[in-house]
Structures are given as structure tokens and as C-alpha cells.
């Protein structure tokens, strides 16, 4: 490893622009003649639209246009769709209700877009939006998924009777029932996974520009996957054919899943630009983000786990009701199914698993992938029930887990996943040692002496990343392949550009992707640039989510570098009159191994472009493209230990230590990986302690600003004690597993296990606010 190569703690190349205020986010973009848009949104959670009058708004100062869904439909703009087909257990396809980018006859959640106002300034657009008159006839509302399934519940979409989108199952129901029949002990847990709002700090935004002369559209948008946005907007929403639509996702201020999906706003801004003849920019305000960004989680689960007399797991039964909100967002159906139930085996050898998932429409914001997407929900069910079982069985939670760990790989679980590598004892040992788990009872006693309740909890998570083998996900219903592409361009002077379909919105790709080429070609980092986020610059790509940029995106770069290296060696062998097999690239030189015959890297690059003296028949140039399609998922895993101290008088929880031991396989840049873990932990701890999303019975979102939704602040969190172990991933060339989501997956159960241990009451739901914790303490008395 060189000082800038793989495994080096290299400071980020991209930092300077962010530190000096020179980042370029969508809201920073200005194009000539640009005007501003405000969406008119439904104030009702469920209502019929009986009339829309735009006349008064059109007369307001500065207004250029007021457009509605009727005109959008007339122009042939299509409905939004969910791109992953799930079939119910009876073989019927999921029941998708229509979602028009601008509602025409019915609104189904507070925030549903009805019209767009375009004006000279945002202030004028906002004033005019107030003047758009929409007559509504209110309809009955349902916000809870459990309530929505009850007979007589308000009907959200005509296409989905009883609000049931699909009733899906996985695993072997009979084998699981048989396992439970043999059980010496069964632990049962009813458990909710709270709805969260992703809250990337940069609100979503879109700038649509239509060029009438070229009949061409450009969209700047806050996207984690601009190519997917272009594909979907072209193929399904009829905005424009792909060759006439350029999508640019410039600097993007965090995503966490919420910027994967294609939302109504970018479609409408592009269309409105053509209709009004001016470039149209929309930037969400924060309340708009709360109302309309896809939310995460929102599961209600009944789970049972069966043990034999030796505390070995015999089987697991899970029934989950998942709230998908008012419309099916782009990947919504995959989250509570193939990203959730396939991980229910956790780190354990469980012979029989059966899970049933019912997904439901309600009058709430659409729910889709949020950091972890399904895997945090799986981890939460399994790791809470394991800790609960250990308490019931009066065995150490660590010992119960250890007794059931998978130790032989590959391991085929009963729920599709085939784990390829791991060492679960290693992460458990590392975290127990770092947390001084053995010394905990002493600390508990000491805290009790001060009148405080101290508790400890652990969580051994596993997740599936490197999403995903295209044929496998295709067979499971995915509408797209989940490969990644890369192009490695060596310029004539030896500098390198790497074009990738991955998108960086905080992950530091401009540094880590460059480290790959620095390692391979011995070129300084400063001579390597990463190009991403623009469909005109980068060939097709699938974007960044599911911790896939390392395992999939970087693997594509490696494949392209392999081709570049092979060609460079051929050229060098020819120039040096040596055998190609004897050529090596080292420290910026291409040389004949074991001799002093050598060419500087740039000279080989230059030779490829001058083409004066290339091997016979070789094409000029030194630039290669590759597509990498993974052969398996990757399986990051780890053990997190949380220790809390609770004030029984106030119910306030303080995290006194948090230890995270993760196995991410090979690591390219430890500094970046640590940052990813820190951020994931903050989001997971936020879910466990602070973040609750509340709709009232009429479907109004009560937590729609930072005044009401508790974001984790610096004071709410401890410093983290994190470490990694390593079993390389066997399925990709770099041995990478992925690190983006682990923190958010493993931490909520650890926190809740610690709190329930401290208060000796297992009936506590997230977020464990002081009020809830205090009430649980009183109930346990």
C-alpha cells in the first residue's frame, strides 16, 4: 500500500470546496431567465377535489403560470410507479394505486401536490399559491396500517380493496410450525418500528430547463442516482426521451435513501419549464420535506422464537404489517420484503423461518428506503427478541447469541440469503472487551448507589449490501439490474479521470475512488479526478444506496483498471522490447521486472495517444469501460454494545458508552469508514431515543418541523468507541462488504436492550422519550 493507496487514511480531496462555501448544490444553480416555483399542496389527508380555480393566482404580481394535473395529464405525463413487483402468496400481483405527479380528482395525504405556481420570485410564487382556490370534499382518513386493514376502514385507493397492497410470505410455514411444536421454550414479542423522516440537511430541490430550439431538457436535482432518474422519467413518465433529457445531480447534501426516488416535483418542474417557456426552480422548505419526502420504517410486528432445551434456536415466526403510506414510492415494495425478511436469520443458525408481510395503504406520506431499509427492521425484531429470550431463559445475552452463531461458511439461510464469510465471535469478543462487559454489574451497583438505573444491551446485526446481483433481483421482481459501471480515462499526460455511476452525497468518493487508481498506477491522488452525477458525462449507472458504492461501484472501477493496465503493459512491452508478462507498474513507472528498463507512466499514456509506435493492430488511446454485476450480496456484520444510565425521577436516558465492532471486509480509507459508522450510529440512536413521527387522527403531521421532530443534536450523543475486524468478502475483487448503513441497523436494538435492562421493563417502544421511560419505570414498580 502506498501512502495514498488502499487502506490509507487519506484526507478528502473534496473537502476544500465544502469548507470554503464553494460547494455547488442544486439550490445554488442559477441559469439565465430562471423563475421560481411553489407547489400548492393538499391541506387534507383524504379528500375529493371538486374544483380548482387558478384565475386569481394568475393575476398576482410576478406570476408566469399556474398549472394543474389536468394539463399535465393532457400532455401525456405518466403516473409515478413502484419499480419492484411483489406477488402475494396467492400469486396475485401487488395492487398499485394510481399516483399522478399532480393530483386531479383525489388527494390522499397532507402534502399531496395539486398545482404548481411559477413566478419571478419565490416570494411571489408563494403569495400566488395562497390564491389558488381548490374546493375539497373531505373523506374519512386512516393513518395507522393496523387500523387500515380492519373491516370498514376508509378506502385509500380503489385498486387495493381493504387497503391491502400485498400479502406476501417467505420461508417454510410447515417446517416452522413443526419446529415450534418441538420447542422447550418460546419467546413472544410484539414490536413496532417507529416511522422516521430521513432529514438530509439539504432539502430536496429541482431545476428544470427546457430548450425549445434543441427540444432538450436539463434537470438539476438532489438525486442519489441521476441515471435512474433519467431512465424512469423517460421510460415511465414520458417527460422526454433519454437522449433529450440530461439529469445532473451536483453536490448533494445527504440522502440516506430519501433522494433515491423520483418524486413528482422534478417531473413537474421539467414539464412546467416547457409549458411556461422559462427555467423553473423549486426548493423544498423544511416542512415540505417533512410532509413529502419518503419516510422510513413504520412496521408493526408480532414475532415468536422457539428454542430447544439447550437454548439452540429451532425456529422463528414473524408477522409484519408495513405502512407504505398513500402511494407506492419507487422501491417501497422491496423494503419490507426482500430487504427485510431475508435478513431475519441474523447471525444465527435458524433451521426454520417463516415470515408474513402485509403492506398497507394509509393517508400518510409514502414510505420507502431510509438508511438500512428493511435491515434495521429485521435487526430490531431479531435482536430485541434474542435479548428478551435470554432474560426469560436466565442466560447471558452474549452466551445465548454465541450458542447460536453461524460458524461455517458458506451458509444458506432458510430465507434466500447465502452468507459467504464472517466471524461473528470476533466482533462479539472485540466489543465485549472494549465495553468491559464483564465489569458491568459493578458499574450497575455503583450507579444504583447514586440513585441511577444503569443498563447494558447488545445487538449482533447482519445486513445484505452490495446490492445486487441483477439476475437474482430480477427473478425477485426488480424492474432494473443493479450492476454498476465505470470508465477509466488515462489522459495523454498520464493524469486519470474515473467516471462512475456511483454518486457521492457525503461518502467521499472523490477520495476513495481515486485511492484505487493511486494504488494501481502509482499516480498521485492530485492527478486523479472522479467524475460523477451527470448523465451527459458518465455512461449509464445505478447510483448510490444500499451500501453499494464500494462493493459494486468500486468493483466496476477495478474491472476497468484491469483493462487499462493490460493495454498499458502491452504498449510498454512493445516500447521496451520485452515480454508483456515481465512488465510491472510500480511507483509511477512501467518497467521490466528485475531490470532497469523502465518508462514513466505518462510516457506510456502519451505513446497510446501519439500512436506513432503501437503494437501492430492496436487501437490508439488508453481508456476503458467496464460494467460489474455482483455475483452475490455482501454481508457486513458486527456487534454493538450500549450502556445507559437513567434518571428514574425524570426518565432521562444518558448513553454512557457505545461500542461498535464491525466487519466490513477490506477497507479503502479507515477515516471515511469511521465517519460512516458515526453517522449511522447517530441515526440509529436518534430512532431509539428521539425521533418520532406523529400523525393525528385527521392525518395532519404533528411533527413537521425541527420544532417538533427531535433531530439528534451534539448533546444527545456520546463519543463513540468503534473498531473493525476483517473477513474479506469473497465475491468481489477488493473484498469489500460496505459500511454505509451498519450503524443505523445495529444500534436501535442495542439502545433499547440497554434501556429495558436498566428499567426492568421490556414493554417500551421507540423513541424511548423521557416521558415513556418514566411511565415504564412506574409500571414496573
Amino acid at each position, binding site marked *: 500500500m502506498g501512502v495514498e493507496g488502499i487502506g490509507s487514511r487519506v484526507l478528502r480531496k473534496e473537502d476544500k470546496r465544502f*469548507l470554503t*462555501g464553494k460547494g455547488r448544490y442544486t439550490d445554488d444553480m442559477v441559469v439565465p431567465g430562471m423563475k421560481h416555483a411553489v407547489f400548492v399542496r393538499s391541506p387534507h389527508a383524504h379528500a375529493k377535489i371538486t374544483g380548482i380555480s387558478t384565475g386569481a393566482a394568475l393575476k398576482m404580481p410576478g406570476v408566469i403560470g399556474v398549472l394543474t394535473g389536468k394539463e399535465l395529464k393532457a400532455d401525456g405525463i405518466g403516473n409515478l410507479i413502484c419499480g419492484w413487483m411483489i406477488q402475494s402468496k396467492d400469486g396475485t400481483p401487488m395492487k398499485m394505486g394510481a399516483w399522478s405527479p399532480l393530483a386531479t380528482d383525489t388527494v390522499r395525504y397532507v402534502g399531496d401536490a395539486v398545482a404548481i405556481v411559477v413566478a419571478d420570485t419565490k416570494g411571489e410564487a408563494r403569495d400566488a399559491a395562497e390564491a389558488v382556490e381548490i374546493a375539497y370534499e373531505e373523506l374519512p382518513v386512516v393513518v395507522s396500517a393496523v387500523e387500515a386493514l380492519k373491516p370498514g376502514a376508509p378506502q385509500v385507493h380503489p385498486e387495493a380493496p381493504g387497503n391491502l397492497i400485498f400479502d406476501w410470505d417467505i420461508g417454510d410455514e410447515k417446517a416452522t410450525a413443526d419446529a415450534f411444536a418441538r420447542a422447550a421454550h418460546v419467546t413472544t414479542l410484539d414490536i413496532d418500528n417507529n416511522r422516521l423522516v430521513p432529514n*438530509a440537511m439539504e432539502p430536496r430541490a429541482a431545476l428544470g430547463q427546457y430548450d425549445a430550439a434543441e427540444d432538450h431538457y436539463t434537470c438539476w436535482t438532489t438525486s442519489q442516482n441521476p441515471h435512474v432518474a433519467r431512465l424512469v422519467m423517460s421510460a415511465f413518465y414520458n417527460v422526454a426521451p433519454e437522449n433529450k433529457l440530461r439529469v445532473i445531480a451536483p453536490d448533494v447534501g445527504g440522502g440516506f435513501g430519501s433522494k433515491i426516488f423520483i418524486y413528482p416535483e422534478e417531473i413537474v418542474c421539467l414539464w412546467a419549464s416547457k409549458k411556461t417557456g422559462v427555467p423553473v426552480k423549486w426548493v423544498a422548505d*423544511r416542512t415540505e420535506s417533512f410532509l413529502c419526502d419518503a419516510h422510513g420504517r413504520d412496521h408493526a410486528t408480532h414475532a415468536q422464537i422457539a428454542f430447544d432445551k439447550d437454548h439452540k434456536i429451532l425456529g422463528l415466526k414473524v408477522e409484519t404489517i408495513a405502512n407504505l403510506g398513500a402511494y407506492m414510492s419507487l422501491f417501497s415494495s422491496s423494503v419490507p420484503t426482500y430487504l427485510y425478511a431475508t435478513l431475519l436469520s441474523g447471525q444465527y443458525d435458524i433451521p426454520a423461518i417463516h415470515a408474513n408481510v402485509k403492506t398497507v395503504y394509509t393517508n400518510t406520506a409514502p414510505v420507502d428506503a431510509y438508511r438500512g431499509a428493511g435491515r434495521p427492521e429485521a435487526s430490531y425484531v431479531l435482536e430485541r427478541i434474542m435479548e428478551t429470550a435470554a432474560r426469560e431463559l436466565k442466560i447471558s445475552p452474549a452466551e445465548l447469541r454465541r450458542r447460536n452463531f453461524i460458524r461455517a461458511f458458506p451458509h444458506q439461510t432458510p430465507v434466500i440469503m447465502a452468507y459467504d464469510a464472517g466471524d461473528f465471535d470476533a466482533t462479539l469478543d472485540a466489543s465485549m472487551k472494549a465495553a468491559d462487559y464483564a465489569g458491568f454489574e459493578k458499574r450497575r451497583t455503583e450507579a444504583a448507589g447514586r440513585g441511577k438505573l444503569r443498563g447494558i444491551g447488545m445487538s449482533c446485526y447482519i445486513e445484505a449490501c452490495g446490492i445486487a446481483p441483477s439476475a437474482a433481483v430480477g427473478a425477485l421482481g426488480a424492474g432494473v439490474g443493479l450492476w454498476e459501471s465505470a470508465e477509466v480515462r488515462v489522459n495523454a499526460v498520464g493524469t486519470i479521470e474515473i467516471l462512475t455511476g456511483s454518486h457521492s452525497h457525503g461518502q467521499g468518493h472523490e477520495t476513495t475512488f481515486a485511492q484505487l487508481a493511486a494504488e494501481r498506477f502509482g499516480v498521485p491522488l492530485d492527478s486523479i479526478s472522479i467524475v460523477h452525477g451527470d448523465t451527459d458525462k458518465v455512461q449509464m449507472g445505478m447510483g448510490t444506496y444500499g451500501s453499494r458504492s464500494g462493493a459494486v461501484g468500486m468493483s466496476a472501477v477495478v474491472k476497468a483498471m484491469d483493462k487499462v493496465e493490460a493495454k498499458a503493459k502491452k504498449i510498454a512491452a512493445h516500447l521496451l522490447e520485452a515480454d508483456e508478462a515481465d512488465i510491472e507498474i510500480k511507483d509511477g513507472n512501467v518497467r521490466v521486472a528485475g531490470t532497469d528498463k523502465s518508462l514513466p507512466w505518462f510516457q506510456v499514456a502519451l505513446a497510446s495517444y501519439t500512436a506513432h509506435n503501437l503494437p501492430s493492430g492496436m487501437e490508439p488511446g488508453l481508456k476503458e469501460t467496464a460494467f460489474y454485476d455482483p455475483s452475490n450480496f455482501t454481508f457486513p456484520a458486527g456487534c454493538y454494545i450500549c450502556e445507559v444510565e437513567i434518571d428514574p425521577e425524570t426518565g432521562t436516558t444518558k448513553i454512557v458508552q457505545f461500542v461498535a465492532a464491525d466487519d466490513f471486509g477490506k477497507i479503502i480509507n479507515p477515516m471515511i469508514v469511521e*465517519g460512516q459508522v458515526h453517522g449511522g450510529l447517530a441515526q440509529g440512536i436518534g430512532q431509539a431515543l428521539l425521533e418520532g413521527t406523529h400523525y393525528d387522527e385527521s392525518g395532519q403531521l404533528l411533527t413537521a418541523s425541527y420544532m417538533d421532530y427531535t433531530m439528534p443534536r451534539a448533546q444527545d450523543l456520546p463519543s463513540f468507541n468503534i473498531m473493525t475486524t476483517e473477513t474479506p468478502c469473497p465475491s468481489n475483487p477488493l473484498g469489500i462488504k460496505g459500511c454505509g448503513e451498519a450503524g443505523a441497523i445495529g444500534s436501535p436494538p442495542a439502545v433499547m436492550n440497554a434501556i429495558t435492562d436498566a428499567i426492568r421493563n421490556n414493554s417500551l417502544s421507540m423513541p424511548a422519550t423521557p416521558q415513556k421511560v418514566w411511565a415504564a419505570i412506574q409500571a414496573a414498580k
Partner: protein
Amino acid sequence: MTKAFWEEPMAKVELVVNGRAVKGEAEDRTLLVHFLRENLGLTGTHVGCDTSQCGACVVHVDGRAVKSCTMLAVQASGAEVTTIEGIALNGELHPVQTAFREHHGLQCGFCTPGMIMSSVDMIRRHPEGLDEATVRAELEGNICRCTGYHNIVQAVLDASEKMGKGAVKAA
């Protein structure tokens, strides 16, 4: 009916921004953050919320950290304003900027300008030095969704120490 331009209430705003005298006109309701971003093109100052909670818009007004979304542009008229674009001198990063880089105290970069402007002010107000608890408490008005604050806290402590204040060790 569109109003003629002279019917719109426009206020004159004169400021010194990052050491340069600037003037412009803005609607009465224009917030300082929008004046900086839209009139002056200083887009480093960000808008992350509508309720003065997130702190992405923090700038210095007459030397003190202010959320520029809580102030009208006209209220700031006559003041000296420093934005994130103005704290690096002659191409040299400010010690707080350097510390954020060295400690990986930023990821997506959106909260970063506000975090840095708040931190510079925090270090100025604590000549006795800073400890972890104080830094965490003082960052109450700045939200970051990426970093979990761990490395931001390290960066502020390090910058405070390097700026010659000497951090007080946490008890």
C-alpha cells in the same frame, strides 16, 4: 394585475461583506440569508430549515454568530458581515476549517459552513479553552445528519487548542 416595480416596497441595503462594501435593494421581507445568497451570490451560506433550528445559515454580524435566517436584510444594513467565503485569508484555510478537514468533521458539506461559523465564534467566546461537554452544548443550534458530531467535536477541540487557547481537559 401585475404591480409596477415602483409599487413594490424595496429597501436599500448597505453592508460590508467579507471586507467589501456592497449595496443592493431588496423587498422588505427579504431575509439576510437570501440577500447573501441571491443578491450577492454568496451561496456558501445555506438554508436547511424554516424555523431557525438547523444553523446551516450561520454568519457573523459585527463579529457575532447569527442565524442569517432570523434577520431581515434591512436589519443588517450598516453591519459588517462575514460569511464562510470570508474566513480563509489569502488562500490559507482558517484553523477551524483545517481542523474540520483533518478530523473528517464533514461529509455532505451542507451543514459545514454554519458549523464552522458557529465554531469560530464559540472558540472566540471561550478564551479559557473548551472541553467536550461545552462543545456539545454550544453546538445545540447546529444540526448535522451525516457525522454523528463525533469528528466535529474533535475538530473544534483541536482548533481551539491550536488557536492558542489550550483546551481544558474534560472532568
